[in-house]
């Protein structure tokens, strides 16, 4: 008879404990080709089971050298490159860039041009938020919204195409104006789109807002506090989702935004769900702005007529007048003539504040052009909020950020 009993269970536990407790951390590369990183973002994750213990975003897979290219071409030649920054809202990028350079020239465009720019910016916002919403829904398991929003986006593309000739690489603005006036009857078609869009938007939002699966995946996930949002330089719906009511359209109005009545939705908790709600509401506000802008659309010139050395003359004048012909030649070959100086302008784009820092030494080519892209700044908070969450939450957080790599990497 043994005097002491060794309980087999305990013995086994003691023996196994040393092996069981040591679990190796796993290193996982999420991306650069991954369906939920929306392009070519790569997250180098360190996983403890299913918990993310470290998140290191690796960027640059779409770094195409836009800033260097800008130093090598005239101001108008760079407009097509701005299309490809945030390729979900190219019109808004065009507008932001044009206003930045116009600030350098101290040029004010006529009210009609401003109103056109507001209309197209807001249409771009709807188009971008729609895809952001659809992709977010798809990441969290709802395919239907993605199909619905693409149908709406196709309608927008049709309007863009009529206006600019291209579906989304629009290159519509020029320094000192826009490429051409609105086509006849276009504003009515935009209003028609708005009328049918709102019920469909409500239907799309209904599919998500009280959806149990969606709320379970997003409520309380990826919470960003007000202080963090400001410290990390977040802008756009990601900042407003955290409860900071900062909207450059309201606080630093440009292009005549002060004339329009609209609300700035803000979140209360700063989680992924709040960011989603903000985007949904912003689309409705955009429709409001578009309707006001079309209702009060001023007549008159749609380009700055006094800016003769900046905005290329009209075609009919080029063909009949020698002076205009020479002027046209100079603007095309040498670029719009700008004074020396430094300006920084940022516009409230769908993704956040898109800024252009233009350094000019005079002439038609920028000396240095820094593009402050909202996606780049928004993503910089990832290492902080993606630590300690489940791997599947990372997908939901990325979806709620609605970033685009073309702009992030430039």
């Amino acid at each position, binding site marked *: 008879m043994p005097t002491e009993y060794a309980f087999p269970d305990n013995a086994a536990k003691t023996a196994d404990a040393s092996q069981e407790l040591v679990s190796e951390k796993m290193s996982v590369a999420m991306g650069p080709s991954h369906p939920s990183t929306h392009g070519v973002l790569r997250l180098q994750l360190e996983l403890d089971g299913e918990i993310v213990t470290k998140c290191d975003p690796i*960027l*640059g897979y779409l*770094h195409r*050298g836009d*800033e*260097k*290219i800008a*130093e*090598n*071409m*005239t101001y108008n*030649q760079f407009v097509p490159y701005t299309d490809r920054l945030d390729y979900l809202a190219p019109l808004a990028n065009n507008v932001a860039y044009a206003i930045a350079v116009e*600030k*350098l020239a*101290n040029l004010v465009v006529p009210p009609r041009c401003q109103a056109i720019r507001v209309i197209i910016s807001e249409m771009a916002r709807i188009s971008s938020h729609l895809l952001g919403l659809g992709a977010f829904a798809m990441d969290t398991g709802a395919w239907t919204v993605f199909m619905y929003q693409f149908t709406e986006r196709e309608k927008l593309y049709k309007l863009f195409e009529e206006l600019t000739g291209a579906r989304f690489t629009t290159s519509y603005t020029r320094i000192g104006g826009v490429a051409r006036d609105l086509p006849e009857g276009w504003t009515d078609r935009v209003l028609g789109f708005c009328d049918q869009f709102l019920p469909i938007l409500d239907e799309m939002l209904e599919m998500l807002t009280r959806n149990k699966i969606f709320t379970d995946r997003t409520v309380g996930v990826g919470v960003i506090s007000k202080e963090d949002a*400001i*410290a*990390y*330089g977040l802008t756009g719906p990601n900042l407003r989702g955290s409860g*900071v009511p*900062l909207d450059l359209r309201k*606080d*630093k109005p440009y292009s005549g935004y002060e004339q329009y009545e609209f609300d700035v939705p803000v979140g209360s908790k700063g989680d992924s769900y709040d960011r989603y709600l903000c985007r949904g509401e912003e689309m409705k506000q955009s429709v409001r702005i578009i309707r006001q802008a079309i209702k009060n659309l001023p007549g008159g010139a749609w380009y700055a007529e006094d800016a003769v050395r900046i905005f290329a003359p009209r075609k009919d004048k080029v063909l009949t007048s020698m002076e205009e012909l020479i002027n046209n030649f100079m603007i095309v*070959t*040498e*670029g719009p003539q700008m004074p020396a*100086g*430094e*300006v*920084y*302008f*940022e516009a409230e784009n769908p993704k956040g*504040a898109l*800024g252009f*820092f233009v*350094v000019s030494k*005079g*002439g*038609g*080519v920028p*000396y*240095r052009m*820094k593009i*402050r892209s909202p996606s*780049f*700044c928004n*993503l*910089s*908070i990832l290492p*902080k909020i993606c630590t300690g969450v489940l791997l599947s939450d990372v997908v939901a957080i990325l979806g709620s950020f609605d970033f685009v790599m073309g702009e992030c*990497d*430039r």
Partner: protein
Amino acid sequence: MSLAPAEVLSALQGKFAQVTARPSGDHPAVNVPMADAVALLRHLRDERGFDFLVDVTGIDWDVDASPRFSVVWHLFSTRDHGYLRVVAACASDTEPSAPSVAALWPAADWHERETYDLLGIRFENHPDLRRILMWEGYPYHPLRKDFPLAGIDVPLPDLEVGEVTRATAAPAPMVGGPFVASTGEMNLTEAEPRAKDESWDERKEKPDTL
């Protein structure tokens, strides 16, 4: 409401004697010696309400300029809704460096990495100064003015793939584009539109000087 440039300057000069006004096309801008930069930025953040760091970047003022590199900080105040530009010149033209403000604003972390990557300005006391846009081990800083737009021939980031495909990060053929007329020159021959970066292309040999 943003402050008039003169007010900002006089208010700051009371505390930082070295601060001077900087010509600017829009927002108030100040020059500051590099040594005072962090103290000034901290003062602006804590006492002037500039709590939002919009952007950190650098400028290369040309190969033979001195000081060659400047660092630019753009600040925004979420309270007053005004911008402020702070510029400091780097002391060294060959190995430029600047103090990091990542401890003041975490947002500066990536901006400084980007500036280091593209312009080669080192940020002292930065927590993790790695390249961010180009790959680790890329030998140049592309936004410097002596770097050609077309690029310089280097191996691909993955040597194995480079070996199999025999591809390199070769200079882009600039044949004919982008067309840019030289600015400010009114001599007709000089002002002719031409590819600005004509260093070399696929058919023309790389010059020895680079």
